[in-house]
Structures are given as C-alpha cells and as structure tokens.
C-alpha cells in the first residue's frame, strides 16, 4: 500500500485512512498535507490508501446510480481496516457516510460494509472537534476572514460550529460572519457548468456578502465551493484570499491562495 506507514505507529494511535478527495488531489494538494499534519499533531497515524479516486458524487448526482455503486464498493474496499476515514470535505464525506449505505442497502454482500464504513467516516473539522476533542491548534494567521458554510457539510453532517471553534484559537485571525453564510455559492458539482449563468449569479451574490463583511480572506471546508468562489473573485479582480480552513489551522497558509499565482 502506497504510503502505508503502519510500521511507525504504535497500537494506541488511531489509524486514520485519509480520503484526499479528487479535487484536493488535483488542484490543491496542500490541503491534503494540512490534513496529515493536523491529524498527526492530534496523535493519529495517517495512511493514504492508493485505491481511492473519488467518492462517486458526480455520477450519483447525474443519475448514474450503478456506476456510483461500483465506485462506492471500490472506496469501501480501499478503506476497510482503518479505525477512521477522514476527509477535508463535507460533501464527499456526506456521500460516504449518508449515501453509500442508502444505495447499497439492498446489496446483501455490501450493505453491512457500507454501514460500517459510514459509522467510521468523518469530515476533518468534525473529526478533530467531536471525536478527538482537540483544543484549537496554536498557530497564527494575519487576516480578517469570513467563513462560507458549504451546503452538504452544513445540512447533511451538521458542520457549523466545529471549524469556527478551531479557528478561534488562531492568533491574528478575526472571524467576521457574513450575511447568508449558509446560502449555496452556486457550485453544485456539475450544476456550475450545466447552468453557468445561474451559477455565476449565485456566486456573485456570495461575493457581495463577502465584500460587505469587510473580510480580506474567505475560508471554507469544501474545495469545490472554494474554487468556484475564488474563480469569480479573481475574474472580478477582487483582492480576497481564498483558503481551506485546514491550511490555516495547520499553519500552512504561507503560499498563494486558491487562484492566486506567484506574482499575486
């Protein structure tokens, strides 16, 4: 297994399989490494199963449930044997913990395994806060940030307070709530390319609220939303940095924000 570091672990450490998510893998690997740091600092032994790709949500939300089942079985297999499965996305982790058991419930061979995996799967912020009960990490970040609540994490997994609690310990960071923080940014997976005009209208409304909050940094827990918001911010020439909460908490925000380059 690639990156299997079980040899370094001791038996009391929880073994965590990191679900990287396809967007983090492709666009922002730094978020993955921030996850590893936060989990290791919290005393976990982190492994990254090689047979993971994507949770299958694009197929599921497009109506191809059969393909989703095949991808679900592959993911269940890849993450068998870990104490926990943790990922930096409420959206992907909701697919694993809520949708897999549902779409495999009539599959005698897989329904039990799907339920078992669901019971061990957590979004990163919820895992650090609710399961490991870590104290907010001691790190610093200079900025006035506002937080976008991504829909799946918020409504399927109840993630609201956890990231805010963790961010409350970051020195130099002021968190200002924006209006309609809980309203969808217009990403919606394939929605953003199927209905670009509506999607852009929604993300523009979001940016209006970010602007009104006076924040210079936008934080969130789902890279899909962050790519969408950053993409529109940069198109409009707005000078707002976009980062995943994990990057700030891990002290790994000393690099260009999402959509920013070396020259920004």
């Amino acid at each position, binding site marked *: 297994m690639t990156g299997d570091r079980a040899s370094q672990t001791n038996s009391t450490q929880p073994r965590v399989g990191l679900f990287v998510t396809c967007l983090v893998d492709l666009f922002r690997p730094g978020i993955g490494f921030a996850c590893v740091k936060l989990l290791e600092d919290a005393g976990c032994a982190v492994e990254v199963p090689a047979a993971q790709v994507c949770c299958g949500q694009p197929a599921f939300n497009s109506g191809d449930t059969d393909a989703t089942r095949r991808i679900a079985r592959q993911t269940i297999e890849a993450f068998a044997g870990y104490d926990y499965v943790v990922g930096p996305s409420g959206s992907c982790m909701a697919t694993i913990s809520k949708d897999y058991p549902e779409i495999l419930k009539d599959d005698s061979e897989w329904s039990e395994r799907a339920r078992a995996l669901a019971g061990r799967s957590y979004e990163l912020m919820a895992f650090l806060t609710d399961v490991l009960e870590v104290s907010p990490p001691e790190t610093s970040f200079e900025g006035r940030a506002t937080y976008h609540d991504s829909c799946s994490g918020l409504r399927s997994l109840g993630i609201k307070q956890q990231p805010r609690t963790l961010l409350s310990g970051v020195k130099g960071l002021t968190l200002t709530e924006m209006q309609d923080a809980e309203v969808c940014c217009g990403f919606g997976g394939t929605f*953003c390319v199927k209905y670009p005009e509506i999607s852009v209208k929604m993300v523009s409304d979001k940016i209006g609220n970010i602007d009104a909050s006076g924040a210079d940094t936008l934080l969130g827990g789902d890279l899909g939303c962050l790519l969408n918001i950053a993409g529109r911010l940069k198109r409009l020439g707005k000078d707002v940095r976009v980062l995943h909460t994990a990057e700030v908490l891990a002290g790994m925000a000393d690099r260009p924000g999402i959509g920013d380059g070396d020259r920004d």
Partner: protein
Amino acid sequence: MAIAGESFKSRASSALSDASLQTSIAGLKSGFVAARARAVAALPEFEAMRDAGAAIKDHTLAHLDVYLERYEREVVRQGGKVHWARDAEEARRIIREICAAAGARTVVKGKSMVSEEIDLNAALEADGLEVVESDAGEYIVQLAGEAPSHIVMPTIHKTTDDVADLFEDRHRAYGFMDRAKSAAELIGQVRTILREKYFAADVGITGANFLVAETGSNIIVTNEGNGDLTSTLARVHIVTAGIEKVVPTLNDASVLLRLLARSALGMEVTSYMTLSTGPRRADDLDGPEEYHVVLIDNGRTEMLGGAFQSMLRCIRCGACMNHCPVYLSVGGHSYGWVYPGPMGAVLTPMIAGHEKAKELPHACTLNGRCQQVCPVKIPLPDLLRRLRHQQWEQGFIDATTRWGISAWAWLAQRPKLYRAATGLAIPVLAWLGRSSGRFRSLPLASGWTAGRDMPAPQGETFHAQWARRARQK
C-alpha cells in the same frame, strides 16, 4: 396551463437580465426568509410540529382511500356533491358541465393552484363564461395575461410600478382615469371592481387548503377575505382540490394550518380562514344553493406507494422556493409551468412527464435548504436526485453528459490508470498557470470560464507527492 415550449435554460437567461424581475425577487429573499425565521424562532415546538405534520400526511396517504370515501360521505350528508376526476381533461369537463347546468354566465375564482394545473380558465372562457380571479395577485396576472410565478404570491415577479402601469392601461374601462400613486390605491381599485363581480357571479370556484374527512369541510386560507366572498355569494360553489388535500380531522388540519401560515408568510395565522361545509341550509343567512367538490387525481395516485409519495405531503406553502437560491435567481416563470421552485421541479415531471420537463430536476445544486425549511419534511433534494436517476435509466439524459459521466466513472474505477493520467496532466496545467495562478479560459471548460477564472493546480497531485514521500522514507 400549457407547459412552456422553450427550455428552462433560455427562460432563466432572460430572467437573469430582467432588472425589474431581479428587483422584485430580491424583496422575497430578504422579506419572507426573515419573517419565517422570526415566526419559527417564536415557536419552540415548531420542529416537533414539522414531525407531527409529516406524520399526519403520511398516515393519511397510507389510508387515502379510506379518508377520501369518508370525506365524500360527509359532503353528501351535508347536501353537497363530490365528483372524481382522473385527469385535467375530465376535471375541466365536470366543471364546465356544472356551470352549464347552472346556466352560469360569470364565474368568480378564489386562488387555486390546481385550477391552474388543469388550465381551467381557458376552458371556461371558451364556453363563453366571464372568469374573474378574486385573489389580488391572481387578478393582476390574469389581467396581464400571465401565469403566476409563485404559488403563494402570484405577482412576486412584478413591481408596484409594473402594476400601476397595467392598471392605468386596463382600468380606464372601470372609470379609473388616473395612474394610481400607491399600493393602497391599486388595491382600492381591485376591491371596487371585484365587489361588483362577487355580487354578479353565478358560480364561485375556490381551491382547497385542507379537506376535512370527519366533517366534510373545505378549509381555505387567505389574507384578503376573497375566499369567503367567492364561496358564499354565488349560487353555486365549486371546490377544486387534488386528492392529497384530505386530512382526517379538524385537529389534524389545525396542526398543518399553524405550519402553513408560518412557513408561507411568517405569520402565526392568516387573516382569514374559511370553512365551507355543504350548501346553504334552510336557516342559513347566506351560502350557495349548490355545493360541488371536484377531486382531481391528475397523476397523484401514480405517486402513491412509491419513492415519490412524500411529495404528496406538500401543503403548498412556498417556503422551498422562498429559500431556493436558484428560484431566487431566475424567478418562477423560468420553470415553465404552474409549480415553480423545488416542489415544482419534482411535481412537474411527475405530473407532466419527463419529456416535457427534463431540465427541471437538474436545475438545482442539491444544497438542501428547501428540505431544511419544508414544514412537512419532504426530502426534496433526494427526490430530485431520484428523478435524475429515472432519467438516466429511461434515456432522457443528453448524450454529452452521459458520455462524460460514463467516461469519468470508467476512469475513476481504475485508480492506477487515473493516477498515471492525472500525474502527467496536472503538472503541465500547474506549470502553465504558475504565474497568475489561474486561467481565463481553458479548452472544453467554457461553462466554467465564461464568468469565472479557473484556479490553476498548485503543483503535482497529492498522490504523486505522497508516493514520492513514501519512497524517500
């Protein structure tokens, strides 16, 4: 009402560039969302009531035959008549026959979404009847030759100025020669005109919010009192209702009424709540001589007992659309038929068929805000996803999407190949975008880049870096 021919996408596009429409729906966004939130916060048992409301509807739907027959018996006992309509055509025929038998020339209508669903007005007008909508909002859209754009607030797409223009043009016939200067003046005109219509009407047609099985009563709620006048002043009262409107008892109705007023308008109770039970009795001071109920199926029994049954819980409060960021961007007319927003995106394909509404289940980000506010906890995002699945199975998904998703899913099931392909492509993209950190345009990504930059990858993929790190240990 016929389903609009052009696509959701093109209607939505026009709506997005309609400044007046955008101004009108912005008010909905701030006003009604806040009002509902205040009303809910003031009622600690609201969550428990949502569960109770859903349970009442589920129980009734599980025994729908029993409660509908009980309701019919009670209506008949009160001297009324119940008509069963399998579809829109049959419903129209029944109502036209009742009007013809009564020798009717004029009809006044209370607000009724199901009458829009069966396209009733056009059918009655074709018979030579004068049909006047008595809900102020419905009156306005009728006068403008438009369809309602919201199930509770039919004219939410219009500004006060739009209405003043319309009345200035159309109310001269009634002697209103000057343009109204305020909303109150506009309403005053409607009130004056409608007063005469009520007294002249031969038939009053209302919808139904709830049909009560134990008493045979119909309950309608309004904030204008037009429901009272429509159902009591004409010689004949016709109630039009979908078969899912029945509830067992008055107590059940009261739970749902409390949910309805709060969810729809943020009110504890509507200004008027009208119960009508049969025709005028010998010692009644007013009321119709004839009382008819037309129970309309029109696709509803197809939804019973299956994956979509929970949609029949809907009490037509409009909270789902008031909280839907897509509805709030494009307005109700974009959805092309009677029912807009999340509930419409489920109901329209269910009633009219996928071929006539295949875009609607996809015009949603599955953000879940509708389900969060639904007073009877309909899992709308889940139902929309199920419709997408039906479309996938039945071949309604366009070839490009189908091919794209299938190709991606094929690759996603081959981690090694996927890793090899992305391991090559991503560093190239990252290198190309390293200076600005983003792309203004990319091949095959115009849907994204028309209004947004595409952030560039940060560097090599996570998995490539992790594998190297593991090898170096």
